[in-house]
C-alpha cells in the first residue's frame, strides 16, 4: 500500500445553480500518473483548477501529505503546471522562462544556471536557450513550459490538455517525451484530457469524469476490459451497443434476449437487473469473428461493407432489427473484401467479452 500523498476529499464546485463538480473524492499515491478523462464540461478541469488554487471549491478539501492546500495562495502551493494555451513569458528567453520560478525564489545564480541547463537537457532544447518563445514551434513551447514547471522540483505537476493545440504527429511525439520525463523525474502527474487514446497511452490510472462525478477510476485495462457503466464502455475505445432484454443473471453472468428473439447466454453483467428489464449489450469491435467458434453466440446480419486492413478487417453489418455494428475481426483467407451487400451472413462473438448494462433513462 502506497503512502497517502494527495487527497481530494468530497470536492464540490458550484457556479450559481450549476454544479460543475459533485463531491469528488480521490487518493493519488506519490509518483502516479493519473489522468482526468472526460468530455468537455465534465468537471475535470474545474477539479484541476481547485488543486492549482485558481478556483475556490464550494466545499470539500484538497490535502497534500495530510495538510490542506485550500488556504494556501497559488504562488505558495509549489505546484507545477503546464497549460492548454502557450503561457511562456513572451519577453523572456527560453532560459529565463525556465529560470523564472528559481529567480522569484531567490536561488543563488550558480544553482539557477545549473538547474536551467538540467531542465533544458531534460526536454532536449539545450540549443534553444537564448531564443524568445515566439521563435519556437508550439511543441517546443510546451516542452519549455514543462521545463519551467519542473524547474523547482514541485511534488505535483498539473497538465491541462497541454497537447490539444498540436497536430496528431507532434502530439504522439510529445506524449512519448512526457512518459520519459515522468519516468526520469518520478513526479506525481495529474493530467487532464478529453482524448481517450492519449489517456490510455500516458496514464497509470484514469479517472473518467461525467457530469461532475467520477464514473470509474482504474487502469486503462480496467476501463477498457471491465467498464463499470455503459458510459465508460462507450467513451473508452470503440463499442457496439445492441438493444436487449434481460432474462436472468447469476454470479455476474446473464442471459439476454435480442430484438430478433435469439437468446445469448453467459454475457457479463455487473449491474443488478430485473427480469424483463430493458438493457444494452456492449460488444467490442475486435470481439467479433467471421467463423463459428465453440461456445460463441451468433447473429444473422446483412453485410454492408467489408474492407481489408492487413491483420484485421473492418466489417460493417446491419442486424435484422436495424442496429449497425462495426466489427474488426482478425483477417482470415476465406473471406473476400469489398463484396458489397450480402444478406443472411452470420457473425459470431464470445459472450464472455460482452457486457450487459441497464438501458439509461432516455437512452
Amino acid at each position, binding site marked *: 500500500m502506497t503512502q497517502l500523498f494527495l487527497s481530494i476529499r468530497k470536492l464540490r464546485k458550484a457556479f450559481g445553480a450549476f454544479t460543475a463538480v459533485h463531491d469528488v473524492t480521490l487518493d493519488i499515491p506519490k509518483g502516479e500518473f493519473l489522468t482526468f478523462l472526460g468530455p468537455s464540461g465534465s468537471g475535470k478541469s474545474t477539479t484541476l483548477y481547485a488543486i*492549482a*488554487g*485558481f478556483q475556490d471549491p464550494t466545499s470539500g478539501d484538497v490535502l497534500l501529505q495530510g495538510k490542506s492546500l485550500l488556504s494556501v*495562495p*497559488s*504562488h*505558495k*502551493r*509549489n*505546484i*507545477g*503546471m503546464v*497549460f492548454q*494555451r502557450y*503561457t*511562456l*513569458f*513572451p*519577453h*523572456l*528567453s527560453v532560459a*529565463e522562462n525556465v529560470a*523564472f*520560478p528559481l*529567480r*522569484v*525564489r531567490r536561488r543563488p545564480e550558480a544553482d539557477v544556471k545549473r538547474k536551467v541547463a538540467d531542465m533544458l537537457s531534460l526536454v532536449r532544447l539545450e540549443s534553444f536557450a537564448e531564443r*524568445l518563445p515566439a521563435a519556437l514551434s508550439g511543441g517546443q513551447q510546451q516542452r519549455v*513550459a514543462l521545463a*519551467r*514547471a519542473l524547474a*523547482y522540483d514541485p511534488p505535483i505537476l498539473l497538465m491541462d490538455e497541454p497537447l490539444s493545440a498540436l497536430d496528431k504527429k507532434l502530439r504522439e511525439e510529445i506524449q512519448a517525451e512526457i512518459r520519459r520525463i515522468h519516468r526520469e523525474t518520478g513526479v506525481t502527474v495529474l493530467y487532464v484530457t478529453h482524448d481517450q487514446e492519449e489517456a490510455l497511452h500516458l496514464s497509470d490510472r484514469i479517472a473518467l469524469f461525467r457530469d461532475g462525478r467520477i464514473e470509474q477510476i482504474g487502469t486503462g485495462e480496467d476501463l477498457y476490459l471491465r467498464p463499470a457503466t455503459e458510459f465508460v464502455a462507450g467513451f473508452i475505445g470503440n463499442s457496439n451497443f445492441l438493444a436487449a432484454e434481460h432474462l436472468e443473471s447469476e454470479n455476474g453472468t446473464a442471459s439476454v434476449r435480442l430484438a430478433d428473439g435469439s437468446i445469448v447466454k453467459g454475457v457479463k453483467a455487473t449491474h443488478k437487473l430485473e427480469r424483463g428489464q430493458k438493457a444494452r449489450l456492449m460488444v467490442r469491435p475486435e470481439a467479433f469473428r467471421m467463423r463459428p467458434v465453440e461456445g460463441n453466440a451468433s447473429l444473422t446480419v446483412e453485410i454492408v461493407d467489408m474492407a481489408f486492413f492487413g491483420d484485421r478487417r473492418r466489417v460493417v453489418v446491419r442486424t435484422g432489427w436495424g442496429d449497425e455494428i462495426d466489427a474488426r475481426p482478425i483477417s482470415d483467407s476465406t473471406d473476400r473484401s469489398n463484396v458489397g451487400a450480402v444478406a443472411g451472413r452470420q457473425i459470431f462473438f464470445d459472450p464472455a467479452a460482452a457486457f450487459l448494462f441497464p438501458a439509461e433513462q432516455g437512452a
Partner: protein
Amino acid sequence: MSVEAKQGIAPLRIPAGLGGLLPALILIGLFFVVPVLALLLRSVTDPAPGLQNYAALLGDVTYARVFFNTFLVALVVTIVTVLVAFPVAWMLAIMPATLASVLFGIIILSMWTNLLTRTYAWMVLLQRTGVINRTLMGAGIIDQPLPLINNLTGVTIGMVYIMLPFMILPLVGTLRAIDPMTLRAAALCGASPLAAFRRILLPLSLPGIAAGGLMVFVMSLGYFVTPALLGGTSNMMLAEMIAQMIQSLLNWGLGSAAAFILLVVTMALYALQLRLVGVRRSTGGA
C-alpha cells in the same frame, strides 16, 4: 485629359503605385511642412538675419526657468498620468466587454467635452473657497484652505485629468494583448502578485506605457489653456511664453525660435522612444 495629367506628374518622378498618396502628401506639405519651414525661416530672419533669437532664448536665465518649468510640469504630469491610468486600463482590459465599452464611452465623452469648460470646472473645485477646500474644512480635516490652484499642484491635477484618455487608450490595447493565463502561470511558478506585476505585467505593458507616456509628455510640453488658468505666474510654461512674445511683445522672431526649439525637442524624444522600446523588446528586458 489623362495625357495632360501624366505629363503634370511625370517631372516629380513619383514611383509607380505611390500616385495614390499624392493628395495626402500635398496636404501634409501644404499645411505642415511649409508652415514649419516658414517658422524656422522667421526665427532666423526676424528682426534681422542670424541666430540672435536662439542665443537670447538659450542664454537668458528667465527663459531657462520657463524651459525647466515646462519640462518639470510635463514630466510630473506624465508620471502621475501613468500611475492613475494603469489601474484603470488594467480594469478595462480584464472586465467583461459590454461593461468595458460603457466605461470607454464615458472616458471618450470626457474628451469631447469642451476643454475650457473642464478647466473652469477644476477652478471651481480647487480654489481657496472651492468645493474641495470647503468640504475638507467643514469635515474638520484642515483648518486652512489648501493651496490647490495657481501652482504646480493645480496644473498637475488639471492636466492629468485631461491627459488620462490619451494614456488609457494605448495602454488598454497593450494590456488586452497579454494573456491572463500568463499571470496564472507566473503565480504557480511562485511569483507573488507583486513579483508577477514587476517581472511579467510591467515589462509586457512597457510598449503601451511608452506610447501613451510619450503622447502625454509631448502634449503637455506645448499645453496652453490649463497651465494658463490653473497655474501661477511663478511657473509659466513655454506655450504661455510664446503667446506672450507674439501677442504682447509682438516679437515673432523670438516666439518662432521658442516654438522651433520645442518642436526639435519633441522629435528628439520621439526618436529616443522608438530606440528604447525597440531595444527593450529585442533583448527581452532581462
